[in-house]
């Protein structure tokens, strides 16, 4: 079964550094998402992306965050200047979308980001 893959599985960075989290969504999917989950808390929506542009974003997704689909397969989340509170699991998800606005999300296994 096709799956969403995320790299790296764990990233440690120092406060103020830039990080790029990478995702390869399922190949025929059209909608892409980033979520984060702070340890012990709920899964929080960050951003959705369709047709090469952001379609929705949350209050968490401020100017420090950006997303990009640099080629036909990767979908990246960049945090420009990391803060301690950015430490969390970051999940990428994708869904089919075409002809089915209710297609379910398929998640990767996440990148654990630790900011020291």
């Amino acid at each position, binding site marked *: 079964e096709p799956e969403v893959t995320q790299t790296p599985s764990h990233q440690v960075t120092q406060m103020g550094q830039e990080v790029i989290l990478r995702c390869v969504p399922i190949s025929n999917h059209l909608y892409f*998402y980033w979520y984060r989950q702070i340890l012990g808390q709920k*899964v929080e*929506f960050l951003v959705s992306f369709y047709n090469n542009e952001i379609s*929705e974003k949350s209050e968490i997704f401020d100017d420090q965050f950006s997303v990009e689909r640099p080629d036909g397969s990767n979908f990246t989340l960049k945090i420009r200047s990391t803060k301690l509170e950015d430490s969390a*699991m970051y999940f990428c998800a994708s869904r089919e979308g075409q002809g089915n606005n209710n297609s379910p999300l398929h*998640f990767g296994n996440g990148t654990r980001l630790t900011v020291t």
Partner: protein
Amino acid sequence: LAKTTQPISMDSYEGQEVNITCSHNNIATNDYITWYQQFPSQGPRFIIQGYKTKVTNEVASLFIPADRKSSTLSLPRVSLSDTAVYYCLMNRDDKIIFGKGTRLHILP
């Protein structure tokens, strides 16, 4: 945004059937009800989706009454490995929001 309400936690025993109910009073005509399961340190995993009446797959059943303002996820004969957090969502728009989910704990 589509708001859902679920019990925060539930306990059950191995071999039992578990039913988790979700309220979604402001469900829209085009909304489908989707359930996800999440194990610790993993991404949520799609379990089942339905629009009305009953849907069954190899993992679970989903019961949706005629007014669609609630739904019940049914897990038959649970095992210890079904211990997880279960989320009920509406796949509305592109801002798909997870609530706190139901933390299901299966006891031996």
